[in-house]
């Protein structure tokens, strides 16, 4: 095989024409932030989008900083894996909020678990507080607050559909954890249909 070069691969200015949405997911270890991120990324892939996801978390199993970023593009993913700014935030806990706020673009969408992230300072963003912990407890899925917030996030932003999220969750749960499938699905659907999760006027697509 001969040596190759690639040159002048695309016209200038194409970057700005792509439709692409970024989500920053934040919380503390043990809240299911990484699982929610993976579920969202897989659901968006199943719906035909190009997806990039990167995770960042410390060595602690519980309580430490945990963060994931996801980019969903209609086609031709063009992004670096460490994001400079984001369109929306998924906030399970307020402890690491300042780092998220610094990257949120003006007018960005923030879907926050108001049970433990009800104290976010004001800013130039559209805040949707969702009592994800309470809703999870109501449907008998106290451990699944992350899925409640994810369901709510899907309704609010329209980034992915609830059916794709349920299917992705079922794919991701390992065989030895299948006892959680029913409550996880209940949590996703309860979040998606919650009065705290209105359909956003300007949806993702």
């Amino acid at each position, binding site marked *: *095989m*001969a*040596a*190759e*070069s*690639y*040159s*002048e*691969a695309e016209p*200038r*200015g194409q*970057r700005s024409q792509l439709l692409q949405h970024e989500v920053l997911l934040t919380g503390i270890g043990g809240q299911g932030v990484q699982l929610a991120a*993976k579920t969202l*990324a*897989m659901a968006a*892939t199943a719906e035909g*989008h*190009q*997806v*990039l*996801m*990167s*995770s960042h978390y*410390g*060595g602690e199993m519980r309580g430490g900083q945990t963060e994931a970023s996801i980019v969903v593009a209609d086609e031709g*993913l063009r992004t*670096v*894996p*460490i994001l*400079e700014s984001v369109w929306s935030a998924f906030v399970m806990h307020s402890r690491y909020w300042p780092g998220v706020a610094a990257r949120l673009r003006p007018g960005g969408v923030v879907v926050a678990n108001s049970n433990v992230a009800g104290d976010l300072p004001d800013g130039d963003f559209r805040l949707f507080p969702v009592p994800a912990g309470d809703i999870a407890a109501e449907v008998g899925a106290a451990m699944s607050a992350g899925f409640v917030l994810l369901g709510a996030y899907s309704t609010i932003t329209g980034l992915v559909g609830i059916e794709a999220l349920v299917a992705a969750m079922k794919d991701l749960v390992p065989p030895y954890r299948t006892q959680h499938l029913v409550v996880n699905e209940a949590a996703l659907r309860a979040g998606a249909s919650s009065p705290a999760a209105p359909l956003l006027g300007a949806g993702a697509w």
Partner: protein
Amino acid sequence: MAARLLQGSDAVAQAAIAAGCRFFSGYPMLPFTDLLESMARRMAAAGGVCMNAETEIEAVNMTLGAAAAGARSATGSCGQGIALMQEAIAEAALNEVPFVVFNMARGQQDYFQATRGGGWGDYRTICLAPKDVVEAVEHTQLLFHLADQYRSPVMMYGDYLISHTYMSVEVDPIDFGPLPPKDWALDGSRGGTGRSRQIWTWAMGKANDPGPGPDLHWQRIAEKFDGVARLEQRWESKWCDDAETVIVSFGTAAPFVEQVVGELRDDGVRVGTFRPISLWPFPEKPLAEACASASRVLVFEVNAGQMIDDVRLAVAGRAPVTPLGRVSIDFSGMRQGEILTVPWIRDRVRQVIREVTV
């Protein structure tokens, strides 16, 4: 096959198996560990063998053994473990046993190690540095082909961002064309079949015919690597035709630089970007041509200055070559630190362009 969301390590593992890799051995060490885990999960179903070795030295020598028997084989680690593998890599280069080394480095501080090596003798290793997971899938398959084509160990320079990032990716087998038969492979026979060979670093021959001896053997290997250096340079360049400034970067750092350069172009700044895809052979002449109109060359790498040596050799004094990066590791010690962001690179490039202009 439709695109699937795969972690980089899993995508590389699947690409390796699609390329026919049937032996893998390694010792866990982040960010390489995920690749070893994926191989362990997937290799048995493909009819292959994955060994969790007790050390990196054991891993690379098992890989050398499997490869000497003709199997498509691979190993890997991060730079710290690959330091231990240097002797076996040099032996394999000189006794002409092909395998792939997946270097999931903890940053960009192992450029010298990857491109110069630390073993003995006149040998080189082809080294490809993918910019993202999609390219890593292609490089994985290409590396197995190049290893067999040149009967030589070859390397991928990956890192945490290759190993741990999830991307939509298709892992389809790529046909790179025919390869010579592995008629040199040890087949377990002795004496009568006529197929047994010595695989020996000092010469290639048979038990009753020791071959040409070290002088001719090593001359021939040096000529082989001279040919590889001519034929296997790979690179990507953008906006260099009229560029006053060319910025060189490699691997996962390159897309960050490219984004900044794209913005500068939109602002009317005559700047271009050049990425060596093969770190060895370094695309020396293509870089010199890309810099033909440049009055300055900038090098962004997340280390104390390693690739900049190769850039200076290529530019050969025709323009000043200025480093942009520095050592930068995050709190985990597993990945590049704070300078690998678009804002940091944007500020640094604008600052240096101003300084060099003034």
